[in-house]
């Protein structure tokens, strides 16, 4: 990947009156990376994007693009281009005029602009559509025009504010792949804002998980999914079963937890928290539904959980088993569908088994809202 222009946020604070929208954010985004800010709505991710694009000034701290402090530089002077959530195409301009608006401002001739528009239309697979109005295109086509318009400005950094949220599911999935391809082709830095963990995981080189103005974790998708730092990151990204309890014993990188309802269980302490947690601490243990397997009946130990099956559903790629453990503790289990015959367990007691490295321990904290 070509070495693009990086973006750094240093001790960034953004306040609106008494409300703190972004609290001491420190992020280093490598040039040429596809970087996502992932978090629920209202977590401050769009605010960060607006600070990078120049539409609002940080209350404290710095935004650096390519190592240059951007303070006092307006959005029209920054090497960034923003794709808005609602795209904000100019409805009265033709597609080609929309795409080449940034060239028009620089004074390029109509024939130059037309030529560039045709090149970009080819790139986004809309050849010959330049003379239409945006309203004559479909949602996915408008999406691509917005990308072309932003790329035409030849930005060093492309900023995307949930641009896929208005599309239907199939198109959204298709556009994920397409966005990633475009990013790899042009080789510039993409900063992507989303509340959809699927989008963040599939497209990004690195992800920042945000909660209420705070960045909980910055890592690649696999790390965030498998080795979350906080209870919020563990519960927001993907599905997870949470077991609350107190740490009974620490054994190197593993710990034995006295859970509130499911007995003593063993877990791996998440990387960021190793050495920081001690016996007696309140903690949360997370086990993903797909990390469980159905064990032989009667098996027991500190990586087994017994539960009663409430109901089951077939989702295609997985069988979901909704169970109730000791004290009414709900546990979801997903068994991959390999085409095996699958017996119905409804009403039965089953024993669930997990491997220790799949149970991640983090300090007790706020969970993502369902």
């Amino acid at each position, binding site marked *: 990947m070509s070495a693009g222009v990086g973006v750094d946020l240093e001790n960034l604070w953004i306040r609106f009156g008494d409300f703190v929208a972004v609290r001491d954010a420190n992020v280093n985004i490598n040039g040429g990376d596809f970087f996502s800010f992932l978090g629920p709505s209202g977590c401050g991710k769009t605010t960060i994007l607006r600070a990078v*694009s*120049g*539409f609002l000034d940080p209350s404290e701290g710095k935004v650096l693009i390519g190592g240059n402090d951007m303070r006092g530089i*307006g*959005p*029209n*002077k920054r090497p*960034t*281009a*923003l794709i*808005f*959530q*609602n795209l*904000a*195409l*100019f*409805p*009265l*301009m033709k597609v080609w005029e929309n795409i080449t*608006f*940034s060239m*028009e*401002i*620089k004074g390029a001739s109509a024939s130059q602009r037309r030529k560039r528009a045709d090149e970009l239309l080819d790139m986004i697979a809309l050849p010959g559509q330049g003379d239409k109005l945006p309203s004559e295109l479909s949602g996915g086509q408008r999406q691509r025009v917005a990308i072309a*318009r*932003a790329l035409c*400005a030849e930005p060093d950094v492309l900023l995307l504010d949930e641009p896929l949220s208005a599309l239907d599911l199939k198109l959204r999935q298709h556009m994920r792949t397409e966005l990633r391809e475009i990013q790899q082709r042009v080789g510039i830095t993409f900063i992507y804002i989303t509340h959809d963990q699927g989008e963040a995981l599939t497209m990004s080189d690195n992800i920042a998980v945000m909660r209420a103005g705070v960045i909980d974790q910055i890592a690649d998708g696999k790390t965030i999914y498998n080795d979350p730092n906080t209870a919020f990151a563990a519960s927001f990204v993907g599905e997870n079963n949470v077991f609350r309890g107190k740490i009974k014993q620490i054994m190197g990188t593993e710990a034995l937890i006295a859970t509130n309802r499911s007995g003593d269980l063993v877990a791996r302490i998440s990387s960021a928290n190793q050495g920081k947690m001690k016996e007696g601490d309140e903690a949360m243990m997370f086990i993903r539904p797909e990390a469980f397997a159905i064990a032989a009946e009667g098996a027991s130990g500190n990586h087994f959980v017994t539960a009663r099956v409430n109901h089951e559903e077939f989702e295609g790629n997985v069988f979901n088993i909704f169970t109730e453990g000791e004290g009414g503790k709900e546990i979801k289990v997903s068994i991959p569908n390999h085409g095996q015959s699958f017996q119905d367990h409804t009403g039965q007691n089953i024993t669930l088994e997990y491997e220790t490295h799949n149970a991640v321990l983090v300090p007790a904290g706020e969970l993502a809202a369902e």
Partner: protein
Amino acid sequence: MPKFLKEFFNRNGTGMGLAILGLVLFWTIGLIILPQLSMLDFSFRPNLPPPEIGGPKDVYTLENYKYLIYGPEGGSQDYNSVDLRVFFRTLLAAVCVTIFNLIICYPIAYYLGQSKGSHIRIFAIMLIIPYWINEILRAFALRIIFGETGVLNTLFMGLGIWDTPFDFIRNDIALYAGLGYAYILLMIFPIYNVIESLDHNQIEAARDLGAPWWRIHWRVVIPYAKPGISSGCTMVFMLSAGALAAPQILGGPSSLWFTQLIYQQFNDNNDWPQGAAYAIVLLVTCILFVLAVMRLFKVNMGDIGK
């Protein structure tokens, strides 16, 4: 029955539909079209004393229109240069008032339309409330401000900016200010209405793509606001060209407005046919002028209704 009428009756029911239709027809035909037609009829008749109306002399004639162009028969000049000059000056002045109004009102309408918060409502009320005061009082208030011993002259002479009072009225400044002020709401609100519906992201998108502020207005806001701008300009132009109170009160002694001539014909000369002819000429010229300008700026009639 045409389809739209059928739909109209289906939606409103026959009774209510007939009532609405009746009122609308009464309004357009009874109150607008018929009186205007009778004016048109007047304008083609000679001014006769009552006993001769309907008599042999009561025939259709172009006399009244000829009078505007050539003046009285056997007059000293080839053309009615006095009245014609007033006519064209009125049109030109109405165009100037319209442009002047647009320049002042567009920024106000843009600000009102694109900012958020409750202060916008307060601003709007502050714009509207002065219009509760009637037009004549407002015009006299401006006379007090612009008069020889008025507020402005007192202020500037007090500050030593000039020594002798400046005659705002003789120089028509009071008139232009009065006409401009009389119709600012009619300019602001149509533009405000359109700009309010402009997605702010479009302005930000243009800015993000490198556009300076004037370019954003030129390429994004003004094209979008065009229906509102044309609606506002049309109303202000028509109403300024047809204004009577402001020119009467604020006009200098030498500057007649064409409407004042019409008024004189009707009232002072008691020559209704002549007045009607002048009024018809003013109306038709204004309509043609507006249509031509709309053509020039590629505005549809439907846009005016927005």
